[in-house]
């Protein structure tokens, strides 16, 4: 693992109206690292993730990917990047959504190909090959021609993952990607994420699957009340429980369901 962080978030702040959701978040992710963000609902996890590809404009602090500020040409609150510039930055970060957000008018293959064709400017044949490769990797080689409406939730989410990774992003952002799934479909999606992790894909994951966070990530970050309350390797963090009241009360809610 290189010492220079691929993603460097420092003193990040974000408010919605008078509600300050992020109150100075510091977080670094190095290349090849899988970092999981856990924490109570409303604590700012999802907002944090959405700031990384600028789906939310942050108010202060900085988010740098490979040394480049994400949404602004210099510092947060300054001049926003132009449309083309911003789109190019976003293409470097893949995002998978809680509600899949597949394009319903395009089949699985076309969903994956859209970015390859229009953003990466790949010729049709090459884009198709890449799309089929990734759909195969997520176990959907038999569904390439299916519309999202013809797929189960787990299958849709795997297409969502294929769509994001096919763009060859520097970092993959996963926003509670199993929360909208029936319990029996959760594992087929998490298995794909584990596979990507073992391939060395850099990932920032927001999840409520504590067991998954514990066994799949290099580092767990506990975000509560808009800032990082504790972080460390999974076993280090679990050891923190003794001295961190908020972490203890958060995790205690999962002890009944933890596998």
């Amino acid at each position, binding site marked *: 693992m290189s010492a220079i962080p691929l993603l460097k978030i420092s003193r990040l702040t974000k408010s919605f109206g008078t509600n300050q959701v992020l109150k100075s978040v510091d977080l670094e992710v190095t290349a090849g690292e899988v970092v999981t963000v856990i924490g109570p609902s409303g604590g700012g996890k999802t907002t944090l993730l959405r700031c990384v*590809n600028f*789906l939310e404009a942050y108010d202060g602090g900085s988010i740098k990917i490979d040394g480049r500020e994400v949404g602004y040409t210099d510092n947060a609150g300054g001049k926003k990047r132009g*449309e*083309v510039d911003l*789109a*190019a930055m*976003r*293409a*470097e*970060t*893949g*995002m998978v*959504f809680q*509600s899949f*957000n*597949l*394009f*319903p*008018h395009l089949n699985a293959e076309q969903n994956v190909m*859209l*970015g390859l064709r*229009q*953003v990466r400017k790949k010729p049709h044949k090459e884009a198709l090959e890449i799309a089929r490769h990734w759909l195969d990797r997520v176990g959907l080689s038999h569904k390439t021609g299916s*519309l999202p*409406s013809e797929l189960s939730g787990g299958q849709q989410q795997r297409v969502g993952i294929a*769509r*994001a990774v096919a*763009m060859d992003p520097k970092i993959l952002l996963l926003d509670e990607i199993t929360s909208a799934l029936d319990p029996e479909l959760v594992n087929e999606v998490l298995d794909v994420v584990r596979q990507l992790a073992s391939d060395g894909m850099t990932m920032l994951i927001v999840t409520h699957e504590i067991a998954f966070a514990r066994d799949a990530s290099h580092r767990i970050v506990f975000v509560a009340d808009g800032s990082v309350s504790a972080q460390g390797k999974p076993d280090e963090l679990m050891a923190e429980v003794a001295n961190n009241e908020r972490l203890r009360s958060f995790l205690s809610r999962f002890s009944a369901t933890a596998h």
Partner: protein
Amino acid sequence: MGELIDAVVYAMPFLMGGLGTTLLVSLITVVLSLVTGVVLGVALIYGPQPVRWVIRLLTDCIRGIPILVLIFAVYYGLPPLGLNLSSFWAAVFALSLFKTAQVIEYVRGAVSSIPRGQMEAAKSIGLIFPQRLRYVIFPQATRRFLPPWVNGVTDAVKGSALVSLLGVVDLMQAINQVIGRTYEPMPLYLLGAVMYFVINYSLSSLSRVLERRYAYIKE
């Protein structure tokens, strides 16, 4: 019966000329309003706040005025402002204004019915704004836009009869002119009704075909 056929045969050449004008007025109105309506509709949703206010104000005003009033307002109101339009173009302009306000509403309804996540997913793969509209938003919005819009096209054809009030010789005016010579209103009004009906029935059949064509997109 023979007299009826004679009346129709006599009237036909005049009516066909009028029908041509009706179709031309409708076509120009529909095309102009579609182009400006889509542009302004998109601006109403995604534009900066002042632009939205202006468009909102414009559509609310236009939709609150009867077309007939709008036609006279344009015809008599523009020359003092230094814009002299022929009665044909004044009528087309007024109808297009009215139609544009409708198209803006259809676009707003269709586009805002698409879940926010679609735009976000399109952003996250790196598409720029025009690409997001073209490849993600419009293909989905089209399905919701088409049925009311095709209905609106039949309204445009029917509404075009109002241009006769400015003396433009469309189908309606041609009918009135022939009646002025023959003093036999019924066969001619019936004939006119049939002609309007044939056009509009074809259009609404087309709309059903289009709806089926786009029905494959499920929620």
